[in-house]
């Protein structure tokens, strides 16, 4: 097997709450890896720590513990200066297209920045690359002179994509790139991401709370709950047979396009709120809301292991070689 483009091991990120001596455990022991040209969908609710993982991968925030390897190289403790040349290979698409573009720069300047920074092109070459890249994301050359406030949300996000991809990185971290857009625009931007991914072959860590988006884009998915991954595996397998009770609840909450089937379906509504990451529950973090929790769940933390299938580890005591919990069939 070749070295994964991104490998995250036991990543921990705690944010200290001032004056209270407590820590928000935003990410608490997450491991994941992404192979060449693979798209990993990282799914979870708000506050589950998925964006924090994205930021740690780019070292926009410093991990508390654990390690991040890019193409086999440990970047966890590299200095900012040493990190600089590696930045060519990773870029990020941000959630909010309104704050992710420098309002004082023109679109052309924004897309040209990475090229200049890394000395990839100069002079007329820069213009050429910028025009080409803008064209690939579906923006005409006349957009180059515009400033971000003259563009729509969808156009801005295309500029964000162009900026992220202009250096042809090996890995793109996309942090909810479409959730700030109108639904109609979401589809076109997602198609664009899918097309570009196929053409350019970059690996992608796609962070989202939208299950239909991952189903469409991701080769594999990882489901997060309260700073930990509860289930991961190939998208098709997980959608076909979710094993972790939380994944089952998430999938049952997503609407079904066929109204007849939608009516027949049974939705599981989880009781209660996500517990505070300041003081996560003992044992399995999901046990406070899990309808099938047993005593072991309250005391012992389940490991993320592939009991039934090597390819898709699940962190649940109830998933055994012979049995899988099913919360959708219960009343």
């Amino acid at each position: 097997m070749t070295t994964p483009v991104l490998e995250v091991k036991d990543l921990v990120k705690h944010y200290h709450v001032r004056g209270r001596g407590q820590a928000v455990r935003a990410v608490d022991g997450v491991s994941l890896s992404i192979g060449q040209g693979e798209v990993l969908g990282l799914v979870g609710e708000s506050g589950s720590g998925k964006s924090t993982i994205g930021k740690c991968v780019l070292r926009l925030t410093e991990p508390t513990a654990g390690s991040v390897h890019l193409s086999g190289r440990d970047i966890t403790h590299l200095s900012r200066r040493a990190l600089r040349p590696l930045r060519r290979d990773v870029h990020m698409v941000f959630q909010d297209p309104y704050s992710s573009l420098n309002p004082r720069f023109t679109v052309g300047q924004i897309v040209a920045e990475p090229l200049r920074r890394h000395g990839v092109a100069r002079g007329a070459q820069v213009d050429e690359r910028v025009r080409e890249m803008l064209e690939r994301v579906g923006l005409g050359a006349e957009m180059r002179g515009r400033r971000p406030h003259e563009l729509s949300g969808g156009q801005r996000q295309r500029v964000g994509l162009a900026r992220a991809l202009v250096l042809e990185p090996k890995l793109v971290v996309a942090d909810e790139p479409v959730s700030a857009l109108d639904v109609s625009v979401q589809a076109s931007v997602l198609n664009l991401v899918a097309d570009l991914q196929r053409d350019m072959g970059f690996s992608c860590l796609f962070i989202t709370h939208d299950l239909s988006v991952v189903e469409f884009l991701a080769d594999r998915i990882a489901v997060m709950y309260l700073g930990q991954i509860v289930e991961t595996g190939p998208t098709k397998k997980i959608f076909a047979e979710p094993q972790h009770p939380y994944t089952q609840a998430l999938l049952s909450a997503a609407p079904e396009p066929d109204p007849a089937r939608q009516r027949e379906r049974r939705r599981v509504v989880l009781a209660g709120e996500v517990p505070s990451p300041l003081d996560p529950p003992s044992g399995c973090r999901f046990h406070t809301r899990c309808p099938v929790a047993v005593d072991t769940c309250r005391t012992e933390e389940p490991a993320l292991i592939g009991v039934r299938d090597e390819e898709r580890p699940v962190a649940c005591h109830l998933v055994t070689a012979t049995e899988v919990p099913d919360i959708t069939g219960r009343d």
Partner: protein
Amino acid sequence: MVGLVLVAGFLVLAIVGPLLTADPAAQDYTAPLAPPSGAHLLGTDDLGRDALARVAYGARVSLEAGVLSVLLAMVVGVPIGLVAGYYRRLLDPVVMRLVDVVLAFPFLIFAVGMAAILGPSLRNVIIALSVSLLPGIVRVTRGEVLVLRELDYVAAAVADGAGDGRIMFRYVLPGATSTLIVQATVGIPTAIIGEATLSFLGLGVQPPTPSWGVVLTAAQQFLDQAPWLAIWPGVMIALSTLGFNLLGDGLRDVLDPRSSR
């Protein structure tokens, strides 16, 4: 708009005024404390000097003090605020506690103290006022930087491998310019009043050089005999202050990206 007109008017007065009027130091011994007349439009002071000339020339001195002290405070304060806000962990606590110490003194008290230490002269007034204005500017700059450095486009620049200097000057500072321009415009009237106060107290510009504050001090002794001497410098101070304040408000509306976009 009104502010712009007023400020423009004062700038014209300060530049052109002294050229058109009499020598502000020339004395007419025949007519001390003369009321307004054809020869002396605003009358004369106790030494027979033309009041109009002194007010016009005083505009030059007062505006110079106001504008230069704010400029000096900006030149020093903006980089300090920028660096303090950007290196929040390292420098911010130290810089902000120093700023708090200075801010604990009322603006004028601090300026008076500084001027008393430095000694009276136009140059020292400007230094004293700018040091007093400094903490406000540092604080405003830092506040803006703290907001701006968290924006995604700054994160994008970091992700891109941009250096600290480039991020500060190309990404963070430009976002703060409109606020800073407004802050400067609003600082000028404070400085003008500061200069007038210092001069009034004898800690500022020294006679015979006329600044509005100096003219006002001299006129104070003759309020009952020649009230016209005190009125005009007072009106000038009030109107210029109003003008710069209105201009600042207007600029805020025009430049603030939140209101125009």
